[in-house]
């Protein structure tokens, strides 16, 4: 329910660049045709994304009862939202999701940039390295999670066997709060760092070579060049990577669902897990919709904030 659609409003592109010299009438005709051709797709997109999103917003503002004859909605109420604010478990899930997002995204960004810098220098075998790197990213998250589950498992898991072999006892990673959270972050970072690396690499390759030549002639050190030339130029690319990652990390669901079910206790209950439980376990559709809606709003806000930090607009290169 945190899907953000940006597909609407694109058809105008067909009319945006008419052949030079055409009269204005023609242009408007072209625009109209563009809209007509795009209409079925637009209606489809509206049907499958915009309608459910709006429906979920409406549900979050009403008393919803799931019955044998569909949803019965009564009144207009803020009760679903006030229940959220008063629930310790929601406040915890919010804090956990935010901290989890910040830490994983920052680590992924640092590691991903470092890997991209190495990859850019590689001449032989870059294709192979990239293919290898992309394996974790290309695997489905639930399968990743299952694999990490085998590593972390407390009685036959790989990690506890290693710990035991070197005399460090039995770590119960998924069954203890802080290790469970860290273990989940490690699994996430392992999977998504390659994604950040590929995006940053694409940005690096696009950077103009003459600037580096100029820096070299001016006698700038490698480190200085990185901080004062590469990073500022990479800003739009990094902003894009951060936005993708924040959107995804904030919707954290697969890893806790497979690895811990939100436990131990509620230590790894993310907002998405909480919303799922409210809807499909408790059949509390109003509460679940309120979790989903507030999460979507918060992640939008988070993205705007992060874009602001990078002071760029997506798509506007080289600011």
């Amino acid at each position, binding site marked *: 329910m945190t899907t953000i659609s940006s597909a609407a409003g694109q058809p105008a592109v067909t009319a945006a660049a008419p052949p030079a010299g055409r009269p204005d009438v023609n242009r408007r005709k072209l625009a109209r045709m563009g809209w007509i051709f795009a209409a079925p797709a637009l209606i489809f997109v509206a049907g499958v994304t915009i309608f459910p999103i709006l429906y979920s917003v409406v549900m979050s503002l009403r008393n919803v009862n799931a019955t044998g004859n*569909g949803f019965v909605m009564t009144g207009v109420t803020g009760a679903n939202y006030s229940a959220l604010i008063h629930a310790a478990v929601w406040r915890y899930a919010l804090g956990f999701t935010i901290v989890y997002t910040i830490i994983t995204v920052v680590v992924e960004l640092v590691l991903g940039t470092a890997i991209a810098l190495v990859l850019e220098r590689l001449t032989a075998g870059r294709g192979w390295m990239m293919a290898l790197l992309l394996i974790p990213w290309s695997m489905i998250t639930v399968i990743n999670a299952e694999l990490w589950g085998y590593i972390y498992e407390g009685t036959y898991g790989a990690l506890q066997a290693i710990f035991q072999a070197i005399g460090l006892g039995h770590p119960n990673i998924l*069954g203890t*709060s802080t290790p469970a959270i860290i273990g989940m972050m490690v699994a996430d970072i392992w999977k998504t760092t390659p994604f950040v690396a590929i995006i940053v690499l694409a940005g690096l390759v696009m950077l103009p070579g003459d600037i580096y030549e100029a820096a070299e002639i001016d006698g700038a050190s490698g480190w200085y060049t990185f901080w004062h030339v590469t990073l500022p130029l990479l800003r739009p690319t990094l902003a894009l990577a951060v936005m993708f990652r924040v959107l995804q990390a904030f919707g954290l669901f697969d890893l806790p669902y497979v690895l811990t*079910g939100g436990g131990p*206790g509620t230590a790894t209950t993310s907002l998405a897990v909480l919303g799922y439980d409210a809807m499909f376990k408790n*059949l*509390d559709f109003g509460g679940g919709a309120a979790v989903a809606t507030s999460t979507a709003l918060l992640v939008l806000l988070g993205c705007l904030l992060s874009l602001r930090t990078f002071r760029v607009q997506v798509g506007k290169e080289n600011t």
Partner: protein
Amino acid sequence: MRTVTSRRSIWPRSRRGLCIAAVAATGAIALAACGSSGGGSTGSSGGSATSGTIVWSASPIAGSGATDTRTVLIKAFEKAYPKIKVTLVSASTNTDTNRATLATTISGGSSTPDVFMGDVIWPAQFGAHQLALPLSKYLPASYFGKFAPGLIQGATYKGQVYGSPLFEDQGFLYYRKDLLAKYHLAVPKTWEQLESEAKQIQSKAGIKYGFVWEGDSYEGLTCDFMEYLTDAGGTVTNSSFTKATLDSPAAVRAATFMRSLITSGVTPNAVTTFQEPQAMNVFAAGQSVFLRNWDYGYSYATTPATSKLTTSQVGVAPLPTFQGESYPGYSNIGGWNLYINPHSKHINLDLTFIKWLASTQAQDILAEKYSEIPTVESVRTSSAVISSNPVLAIVPKTRLVPRPAGTPNYPALSTAIYTNVNAILAGSVSPSAGLAAAQNQAASALTSTSGGGL
């Protein structure tokens, strides 16, 4: 292998995966519905119709292919009623996924599945949301009288019976017969005795663990906790489900003992991530003296394909209780009921089908072929059934306690129990602080008007 909520035992699904699964399942149901059109259900009195096609949604029970329990039951039914066809829709083995699919399908107005197999803890929630037909409006009191005591009470919500019990399940103590004999120890009758015997055998026989059970943050932990809690004399709510009673000394005693099993080394600390399969596998690999599990535990632990152990090594007994309480301890009730979709267009056929599943013939198949605990009292106590399997033989000796599922907000109530008890087991909070939090959440779950809130 059937489990209570086997999040990790089957293929876990992402949220999107779930939606796809739900859509796929709905599609399959819709196709099945097309196939069933034209099945005219005739006859007026409950369960006497003779021709048509109905769709049955059920998660796997046991067996596979031609020996799949559901297929075997359907074949036997179709032989008895040649004009009625039953189409099987295989539901998820994950109870929560199964419930989500059914709730969205039925509340969306779908007339199929006609009959669905659902958890024993669903009647209040499904009854309150009108997702199941009140069977007591269609079937006479004498029909419900033939089931074992307590089962119909568990399927009742606000005076109406919503589920017809298909087979029952309950907690058992599995133990290493060979090891107890070797060290001249008796089958434990108290939890304290179990703990000390486990410790002795662990040190003497060099076996890794003493006692494994289900301690993950999920429904199964509520089941296990109910057993210790009831043994200690505690309850979760008052009898009318209006007040939570989890902050009692009995509850503290229960939780403190469970935590002490871990701190004393009898139970591995990883038990806080154990569901049925993990606990089962540790025992079946010969790494634990005792195991708490459901009725399938015996055949699983004595089948060469799944276990290193043999029938000469595995014993089964009722669960122990706390010192000073009368033996045996309480076993939590699990199992499955049959429900009818209120939108079904073939209610008479549905009733015929569920009545047949409560017949001696069907219940015998479940008990003798698959070692499931029959729900019909006469079958359960018949000598043929009792002699067919050591687990069924001790069923009459156990004491049962249901989960507090008489409120439609039971899922939220159970979440309050298992998340907090799991945190106690992990050592994140003290037993009294954890139970205070559980009490708080349970109280708001009971008073909520919208499914128990968060």
